[in-house]
């Protein structure tokens, strides 16, 4: 059986991790490579690096970081944040990224998904979707959930699959940061609609929330940042809990 995946997400700015982390064992709390290595050894199934820097040097810095991570870490990792062209993706994959995640660029130019899937194969193209409910309707949002669009979440989900997305990373902006659990109802609907894997994001607060995302939300993977960075949840303990609940997991 294919196992459900647990994915810590590292926010990166100018080659350094941004959100505070609480790892006593870290020599350098801002070093993403060291943090990535610790996560890979503590049972993470994959890693996601989300680059939020906005400098002109961004591309070069990120490519260098990707190279260092690929040289060090022996599990797969995805890189996202501001990726908007075939060239962007090419550089990241050439430097050792396994997958890339595209978000706003795909909404602005949906054809980009087709181009990337055709050139690199759909298996390495993750389409990230940020959405929140506006008057009872799930709408796609841009710029980290700040800018609403008129696009219906579920229409967009269907479209990105048809265009060649290999996976969908769905973040509910209504749940993100609340630590009250994932958007399981919307997740389950998405998961039932598509035949590609769905990664749940936004709302993780305790171990039970992850279990619910897999059982109620029918997610294939779950992503979180702060609960792991601040050691509120140890990945090994989480996986033990999942196993006890009968969820297939890699121990």
């Amino acid at each position: 059986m294919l196992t459900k995946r647990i994915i810590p997400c590292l926010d990166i700015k100018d080659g350094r991790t941004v959100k505070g982390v609480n790892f006593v064992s870290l020599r350098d709390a801002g070093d993403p490579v060291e943090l990535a290595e610790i996560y890979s050894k503590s049972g993470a199934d994959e890693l996601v690096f989300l680059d939020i820097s906005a400098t002109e040097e961004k591309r070069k810095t990120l490519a260098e970081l990707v190279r260092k991570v690929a040289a060090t870490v022996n599990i797969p990792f995805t890189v996202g944040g501001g990726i908007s062209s075939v060239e962007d993706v090419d550089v990241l994959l050439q430097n050792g990224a396994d997958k890339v995640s595209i978000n706003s660029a795909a909404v602005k130019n949906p054809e980009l998904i087709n181009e990337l899937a055709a050139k690199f194969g759909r298996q390495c193209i993750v389409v990230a979707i940020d959405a929140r409910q506006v008057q009872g309707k799930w709408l796609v949002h841009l710029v980290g959930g700040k800018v609403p669009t008129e696009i219906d979440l579920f229409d967009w989900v269907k479209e990105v699959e048809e265009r060649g997305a290999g996976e969908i990373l769905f973040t509910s902006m209504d749940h993100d940061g609340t630590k009250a659990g994932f958007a399981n109802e919307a997740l389950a609907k998405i998961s039932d609609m598509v035949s590609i894997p769905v990664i749940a994001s936004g709302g993780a607060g305790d171990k039970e929330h992850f279990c619910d995302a897999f059982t109620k939300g029918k997610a294939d993977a779950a992503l979180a940042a702060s609960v792991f960075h601040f050691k509120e949840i140890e990945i090994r303990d989480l996986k033990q809990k999942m196993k006890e609940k009968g969820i297939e997991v890699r121990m």
Partner: protein
Amino acid sequence: MSIEKSKASEKIVIIDYGAGNIQSIKFALERLGYTGVLSSDAEEIKSADKVIFPGVGEASSAMKKLKSTGLDTLIPQLKQPVLGICLGMQLMCNWSEEGDTEGLGIFDVDVIHFEKTLKVPHIGWNRIKELKSDIFEGIAEQEFVYLVHSFYAPVCSETIAKCDYGVNYSSALQKNNFYGVQFHPEKSSEAGEKILKNFLKI
């Protein structure tokens, strides 16, 4: 000391035909203390002690690239241990449903698409079982490996490991000096590194 010396003198060529993420394989070899050379040159490939045949992407376009460089005739003639990874393994088979493309014909099996009822690509960690090859020495039955693929080789007489995703299929194949793994050993944590190491020690 002597082990390090033999590692350094071992010539490992990773076939570079413009398909996918080969940097990761090079890095994985470096973590094991080996050096991998990326090459598409026939003489360089022929002179290697070990050859790694990677591949990520689409089968028919990858096969076209192999044909345009003559690698399609070279690879089946190689005498040293050859390890095909993921699409590399699939291209070593007779035929692939992906793009209806002829393969290198090393493994006597056709590559087909997973059932439509399953989530495809098959992405993530799954178990390998019924292991029977020296490349799995020290690897436990039901060990986890990382996979990303939509097509698979059914179980056949050359199967040396199986995986279960809706169906039991070939997670690894072997024929004489040719080995193929559907999973990514370079991304399969310690177990993957052990399998790579076993291959390099053949």
